């Protein structure tokens, strides 16, 4: 237990960086995901294709490889950014397609009859989407969006391998100096992660129950 209190500063730094990575990525990846989702359901084939290729490409590439690209390949191409922004960029590029898929499947969960009704009273694509589909889609979109965010919280740990000091780095740094207290340190770090992920999961469950509509 003492090991945790002795290294409270490190814990604070790791926890802070993890939260910053999380918030930064959510703020960037959510809008990007929304754009990609909009592209994938748009009437324009070229936009649909672009969105689909981006989604498939990133969803089938390991996050480590995306980090690898931003940290080791981009500098060779003359783009040098600090480690922290690079980490946020990697997480954003990787997470946005998952947000997009969550949003798109929410849109798809609205019964076809709704869209048909809207179209038959003469609403156009934009009107159908903004006035009829999206307001109904929101309720089924929020729980999966939270689930993607939970996955993102865990994914921020990958930045550890790329020179960002996260919660996991607390453990890797203290492995040599505090061999006796490693289990306690591990549990401390685990609690920090669970402090983020479990409340988010509870929130998703509760919203899912409250927003569920009998259809």
């Amino acid at each position: 237990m003492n090991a945790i209190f002795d290294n409270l500063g490190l814990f604070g730094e790791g926890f802070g960086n993890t939260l910053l990575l999380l918030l930064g990525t959510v703020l960037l990846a959510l809008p990007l995901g929304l754009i990609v989702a909009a592209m994938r359901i748009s009437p324009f084939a070229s936009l649909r294709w672009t969105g689909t290729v981006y989604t498939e490409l990133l969803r089938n590439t390991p996050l480590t490889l995306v980090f690898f690209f931003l940290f080791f390949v981009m500098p060779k191409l003359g783009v040098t950014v600090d480690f922290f922004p690079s980490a946020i960029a990697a997480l954003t590029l990787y997470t946005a397609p998952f947000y997009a898929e969550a949003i798109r499947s929410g849109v798809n969960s609205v019964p076809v009859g709704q869209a048909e009704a809207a179209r038959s009273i003469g609403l156009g694509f934009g009107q159908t989407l903004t006035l009829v589909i999206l307001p109904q889609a929101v309720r089924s979109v929020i729980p999966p969006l939270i689930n993607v965010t939970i996955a993102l919280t865990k994914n921020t740990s990958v930045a550890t391998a790329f020179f960002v000091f996260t919660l996991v780095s607390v453990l890797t740094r203290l492995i040599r100096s505090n061999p006796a207290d490693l289990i306690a340190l591990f549990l401390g770090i685990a609690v920090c992660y669970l402090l983020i992920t479990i409340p988010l999961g509870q929130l998703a469950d509760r919203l899912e129950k409250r927003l569920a509509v009998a259809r």
Partner: protein
Amino acid sequence: MSSVLYDAPGPRTKRTSAIVSTVVGLVILAALGYSLLTLGEQGLFGADRWNIFNDPLVWLDLLRALGNTLQAAALAAVGAVILGMALSLLRMAEHRWIRIPVTVVLEFLRGLPVLLMMVFFWGVLGLDSFIAVVLALVLYNGAIIGEALRSGIVALPKGQRESGLSIGLGSLQTRLVIEFPQAFRNMLPIIVAQLVVLLKDTSLGYAIGYAELIRRGRLLSENFGASQYGFSVFIVMTAMYLVVNLTVSTLARLAARRRGTKDVDPVIAANTKDPGASV
């Protein structure tokens, strides 16, 4: 091409669509062209950046690393599915003193980053990096698959369990013989999707020194000079991952289709050729 969300294109929409497509195409081409040009200016497509791939030993090294990745993934996949089945059964056990601890353990495992578990097994318990990778992946994905299976069982019609019990099967028997096979089949797409995640997560072994694809690739390019070969090795590694993952993803999709679960997906359905499919 038609969708519920918009009409079959008339002349005006066709024109707009053509304009949008041209603009998007041009923007993408410009971006691609610019990056290719920048890359080309730095000589990244020159033969001297790619000549290591003339050496069969380099390929052998990369393929062996890919083999390590696949080996860890295969072992972890089998373990995760078995653990998932066990956890889903225990999680639904009738005795509270089994159910509650298992629920707590599941929440714990699902809420932690895989990398943290890997570092724990490798750095704290001092296990071999291969075992640490596999063990962490089994625990994490087993918990997720377990939850998926459980929700699959919960989603079954109540009558399934009732009829099992009423023909004289025991509680556990009903679960194993009646409910489990159905839940497993219904959840197959989710399980396979999770196995793709598992495959991708083997790359986290990079951080604890397991000789998987990305680590070997990095070492390889550093041995030959990272500034010279970093880019070409990255391209080859990405291609390898894409081939493997897209194959597994396609298999997942085929499995879902063969089961006859149609995507309840008006937008996708609407984008198929058959207009009738959109309803």
